[in-house]
């Protein structure tokens, strides 16, 4: 591997001491280091593409939402030409927040401090008392607009980056696009965000949930044991390790750090255990068991919006959980309910850094826009009961991560390493259409290790 320019921390540690590529280990100290955190903000969060929300949150001209790109707050707006802009929420005059609300509608954003005003596209309108020219003589009005990020919409998802001339969004997605299209770009009207996100703060470093979003399948078996005890995933409390439900599938990842776990429903969930796809056509399979979040009415649209190969995968072994580097988790899961229903749950999270030892968990919940109202209602309820604040799955994650954080503080503890040594090595399964690094069989550490390699790559670039 090409040795890249890197950094040295005050105590002499280098990136190679932190992400130890020879042995596939990561020093626990990375979770609690102010110097490293500062570098991460510059080299990752000020550089790469970040998810901010969905265009269905701001349907009308002038609508806005306020979101975070790392510790930089931005205003996401829709202008009169229907274009979406991402502007830094820092007044170019003296640094006040231009927008103090989380969401709303405004044709002009006026800073409450001295009244400078900006259009939804970020351009400077002027300061009050125009005749006195309170923005001075040195700078043209065209120079005094809000700082603008580069924006890209993908399946309605709003991504932005400060890296104006950096890698394209398509380069950022890489081979993952084939799989992600199956989740975000499969229907005519696309996804709809069902309401403002749930937001809560956890006392831990952003990389603790971050590395888990690199498709940690293994923890499902133990941390989320209650899913087996409750009869949701296959097996019983006694047979968890014999059946290992949800552990077998195809894990996919790319050098950009994104990953997904593709899982057959019958192998994962008790209520689908008897569903047999044997001898069935793609269409029959889709009708027998539509992918999470897709209703039967929407099935014809899949053929229209996706390639034959993409539909084929969605009908057999759909991507269900995974993440996108650096801080996105996605769960597009069958999510059977204890009452026997299964409308699916579609959720995306961002883990927004708020200091070396704080992270904001932002939970976005979706449904297909053209799904019937009752389905949307059921999916919302399902997602709330399983993910986020009170979700029975993610409560347990939220309680575990801060304990890892506390451990990262000890003089001895911080010298311990996180281990990613259960490696499978990539291997192309039979009848597989997509590209990327493929790991069929029992879930291992490969995808999470690739997450750390993506981290290494970005951190090595000044």
């Amino acid at each position, binding site marked *: 591997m090409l040795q890249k320019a890197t950094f040295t921390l005050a105590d002499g540690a280098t990136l190679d001491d932190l992400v130890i590529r020879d042995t596939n280990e990561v020093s626990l100290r990375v979770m609690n280091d102010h110097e490293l955190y500062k570098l991460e903000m510059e080299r990752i969060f000020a550089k790469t593409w970040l998810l901010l929300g969905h265009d269905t949150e701001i349907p009308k001209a002038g609508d806005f939402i306020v979101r975070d790109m790392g510790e930089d707050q931005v205003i996401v707006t829709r202008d009169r030409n229907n274009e979406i802009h991402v502007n830094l929420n820092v007044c170019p005059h003296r640094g006040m927040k231009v927008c103090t*609300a989380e969401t709303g*509608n405004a*044709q*002009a954003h006026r800073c409450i401090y001295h009244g400078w005003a900006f259009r939804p596209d970020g351009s400077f309108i002027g300061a009050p008392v125009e005749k006195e020219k309170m923005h001075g003589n040195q700078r043209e009005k065209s120079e005094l607009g809000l700082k603008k990020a580069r924006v890209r919409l993908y399946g309605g998802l709003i991504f932005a980056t400060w890296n104006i001339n950096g890698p394209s969004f398509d380069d950022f997605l890489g081979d993952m696009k084939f799989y992600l299209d199956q989740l975000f770009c499969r229907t005519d009207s696309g996804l709809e965000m069902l309401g*403002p996100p749930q937001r*809560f703060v956890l006392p831990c470093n952003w990389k603790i949930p971050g590395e888990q979003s690199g498709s940690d399948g293994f923890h499902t078996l133990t941390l989320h044991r209650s899913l087996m*005890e409750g009869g949701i995933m296959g097996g019983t409390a006694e047979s968890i390790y014999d059946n290992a439900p949800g552990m077998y599938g195809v894990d996919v990842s790319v050098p950009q750090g994104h990953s997904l776990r593709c899982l057959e429903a019958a192998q994962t969930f008790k209520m689908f255990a008897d569903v047999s796809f044997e001898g069935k056509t793609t269409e029959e399979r889709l009708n027998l068991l539509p992918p999470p979040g897709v209703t039967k009415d929407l099935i014809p649209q899949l053929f229209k919006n996706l390639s034959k190969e993409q539909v084929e995968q969605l009908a057999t072994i759909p991507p269900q959980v995974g993440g996108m580097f650096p801080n996105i988790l996605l769960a597009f899961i069958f999510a059977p309910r204890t009452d026997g229903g299964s409308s699916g749950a579609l959720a995306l999270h961002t883990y927004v850094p708020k200091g070396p030892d704080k992270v904001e968990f932002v939970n976005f919940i979706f449904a297909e826009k053209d799904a019937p109202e009752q389905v949307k209602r059921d999916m919302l309820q399902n997602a*709330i009961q399983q993910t986020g604040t009170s979700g*029975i799955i993610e409560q347990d994650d*939220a309680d575990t991560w801060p304990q890892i954080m506390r451990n990262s503080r000890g003089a001895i503890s911080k010298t311990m390493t996180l281990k990613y040594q259960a490696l499978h090595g990539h291997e192309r399964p039979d009848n597989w259409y997509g590209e990327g690094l493929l790991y069929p069989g029992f879930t291992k550490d490969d995808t999470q290790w690739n997450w750390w390699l993506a981290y290494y790559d970005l951190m090595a670039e000044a």
Partner: protein
Amino acid sequence: MSVNYATAAVDKASVMRGLVSKIRVPLGSEIYNRLLETLYDEAAALDERRFDDWIVMLAEDLTYTAPVRVTRNGPNKDRDVMRTMMHFDDNYASILMRTGRLAKSAWAEDPPSRTRRFVTNVRMAECETAGEYEVVSYLYVERSRLDNPENETTSCERRDIWRLADGGYRLSRREIIVDQSTLGMSNFAIFL
């Protein structure tokens, strides 16, 4: 300079007031005392993790929700309870699922938190249906987790409907209005 500072049109939703009914149940009256006692008993059952005792206090038509709050300004500044998204969206069956889980491998509460629920500012009124009462209370929770010396806390208002049945009161509706737009509590693995 012609700047259009017009912000959003006012939302249709009215500004929510805790207590809707005008027929007050006066402080110190027999019904007030019994319902207040019920709230205290409920808080004790939850603090002491006697979930079976709590379930007995719930009506089978229960709705149990906690809408998110967002920070808004201008004409909608007081319309900040967003019922399109919730922190809790539960009914009787899903509450049973949650308490059932708490009896097994629910690591978020095993080891359990030590909690104190402080119930205050209790106001009551009669509903149209005889035997049903609107009960609005403030709740403040201190939650001690593991060996962390700093408690997680949360404050909220609860808008309840309690129904007289079998000589006791059963909770048939609870809407929890949290005060934080970004919660400081790491999860809602506890009931509010």
